[in-house]
């Protein structure tokens, strides 16, 4: 399948380099009036966390994930977006290129881009993602967590998007094809950071509406298909995961390691979000289907949802925003695509305190259960910041 990664990296890096150079030259010439292209700006996001679990007494302080988001309007039609992250885990630091996008805007109806994206499935994945300050809660819903085995977090390829203002409903679409970046097979190397598996022919479609008559409201439907090759990742799997997959192979009377066998993945999602000053309600429902492409038919189904509600206090308490979230994932214990049981449920209660315009302190109590494991109670604190317009010129 077409591997666009080297090409994309080259294009975007080159564009950004020339954009920076051009801008620097313009500034030196003294002709810069504030609306000349290129216009580049950057936002920084940072977080630090304290975690305490009641059952095991485990306590941990981590600096979490730090992100830098670059945006460049290279002309009135062409723009570039890039996002880099730094993740501190024990003594290691991982750097990732989370997004690299170059887009040409033909009109409101059609914007065509090439690059690496947050897969447009549902709401959270493409709205908050690495910006901890942007989201009300400390962490993402489990459906979209780091190294998610359910929703392919990233996607590389070509994306067409646009909006159609029909009867003030502001319909929008995103449709793309390329390579799905899955974190579902090669989970956790020794450093604790997720690996990646490429899907062969990802297709993604999202339709949404943001009606003018309900400010801050979005409702959408998403559909995603991909073909994930397991064999190419077998060497990277942990013993446990290999054993798990081999159980399926034995059932099928197939030698897994000798057969190039793929898994067809279909994911559908529905979401709605209401984000206003005083109230926030976000909910997503994701449904999936996994099936071997050859051999005896084995199909796994599963679904997950979350609903989150928050209320911004008023008067002297306006800096406080209490919230609650319910998460639930129902998955087959032996789903052919997942390396481990993804069943999960949790209740999260928390308060966000915006003590400045750019920093928030969040305190969260969680009661959660993963698969058949014991139910956990934990307390988490997070300090998150945003540095808007780290530089802008």
């Amino acid at each position, binding site marked *: 399948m077409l591997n666009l990664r080297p090409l994309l990296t080259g294009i975007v890096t080159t564009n950004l380099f020339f954009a920076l150079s051009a801008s620097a030259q313009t500034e030196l010439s003294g002709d810069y009036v*504030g*609306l000349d292209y290129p*216009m580049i*700006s950057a*936002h920084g996001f940072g977080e630090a966390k304290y975690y305490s679990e009641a059952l095991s007494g485990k306590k941990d302080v981590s600096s979490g994930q730090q992100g830098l*988001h670059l*945006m*460049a*309007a290279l002309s*009135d*039609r062409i*723009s*570039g*977006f890039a996002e880099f992250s730094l993740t501190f885990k024990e003594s290691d630091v991982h750097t990732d290129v989370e*997004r690299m*996008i170059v*887009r040409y*805007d033909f*009109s*409101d109806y059609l914007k065509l881009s090439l690059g690496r*994206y947050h897969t447009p499935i549902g709401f959270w994945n*493409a*709205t*908050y*993602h690495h*910006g901890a300050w*942007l989201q009300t809660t400390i962490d993402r819903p489990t459906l979209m967590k780091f190294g998610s085995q359910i929703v392919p977090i990233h996607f590389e390829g070509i994306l067409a998007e646009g*909006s159609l*203002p029909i009867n*003030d409903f*502001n319909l929008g679409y995103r449709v793309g094809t390329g390579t799905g970046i899955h974190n579902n097979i090669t989970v956790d190397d020794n450093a604790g950071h997720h690996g990646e598996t490429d899907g062969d022919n990802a297709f993604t479609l999202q339709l949404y509406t*943001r009606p*003018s*008559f309900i*400010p801050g409201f979005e409702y959408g439907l998403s559909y995603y298909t991909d073909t994930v090759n397991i064999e190419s990742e077998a060497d990277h799997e942990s013993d446990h995961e290999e054993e798990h997959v081999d159980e399926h192979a034995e059932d099928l009377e197939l030698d897994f390691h000798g057969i190039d066998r793929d898994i067809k993945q279909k994911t559908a999602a529905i979401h709605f979000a209401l984000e*206003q*000053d005083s109230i926030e309600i976000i909910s997503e429902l994701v449904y999936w289907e996994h099936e071997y492409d050859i051999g005896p038919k084995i199909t796994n189904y599963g679904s997950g949802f979350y609903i989150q509600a928050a209320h911004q206090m008023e008067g002297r308490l306006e800096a406080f925003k209490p919230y609650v979230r319910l998460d639930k994932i129902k998955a087959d214990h032996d789903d052919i695509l997942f390396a481990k049981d993804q069943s999960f449920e949790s209740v999260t209660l928390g308060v966000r305190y*915006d003590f400045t*315009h750019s920093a928030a302190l969040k305190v969260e109590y969680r009661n959660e259960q993963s698969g058949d494991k014991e139910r956990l109670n934990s307390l988490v604190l997070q300090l998150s910041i*945003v540095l*808007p317009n780290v530089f802008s010129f």
Partner: protein
Amino acid sequence: MPRLFNANAPLLKRLIISLLLTLPCIGNAQAKEVLAVIVHPDTSVDGLTEEQVSRIFRAEQQFWPDRTRITLLIRAPVSQGRTMALQRIYQMSEQGFRKYWISKMFKAEVASGPRVMYSTGMAASLVNAVPGAILLVPFANIPKNAKVLKINGKLPSEEGYIYAM
């Protein structure tokens, strides 16, 4: 004046004086603040609906019908034009407005936020200089030669104009 409010003064007299003193306040309450939508003189539209204004200022619509890119201009915080725009168009607090644009850029839906104008003079010169520019200004501050748009078919000076507060 204190003598008029003497407790011994007749009730009718005290009422009349009180009404007279409150008249200026009533007058102020009735004086409407009007928000005008002005654009670059070459912009190909003469009027918008309230929904279109909302869509444009929220960057859901980023191009004029002739495919010129829309450049959003907004006054700096605390100015009357910005306060009115946040109340009437965005329906957001200052913090909500800030978060909205950071989020919008984070989602890669726009490459930049509205350009901030620090003075009426700066706003007036840029809206006339930048093709596709659009700005919300108090009626009293409409710059000379600016193209003022009709909203829902009415100009700011007309009765029933939607952005009169």
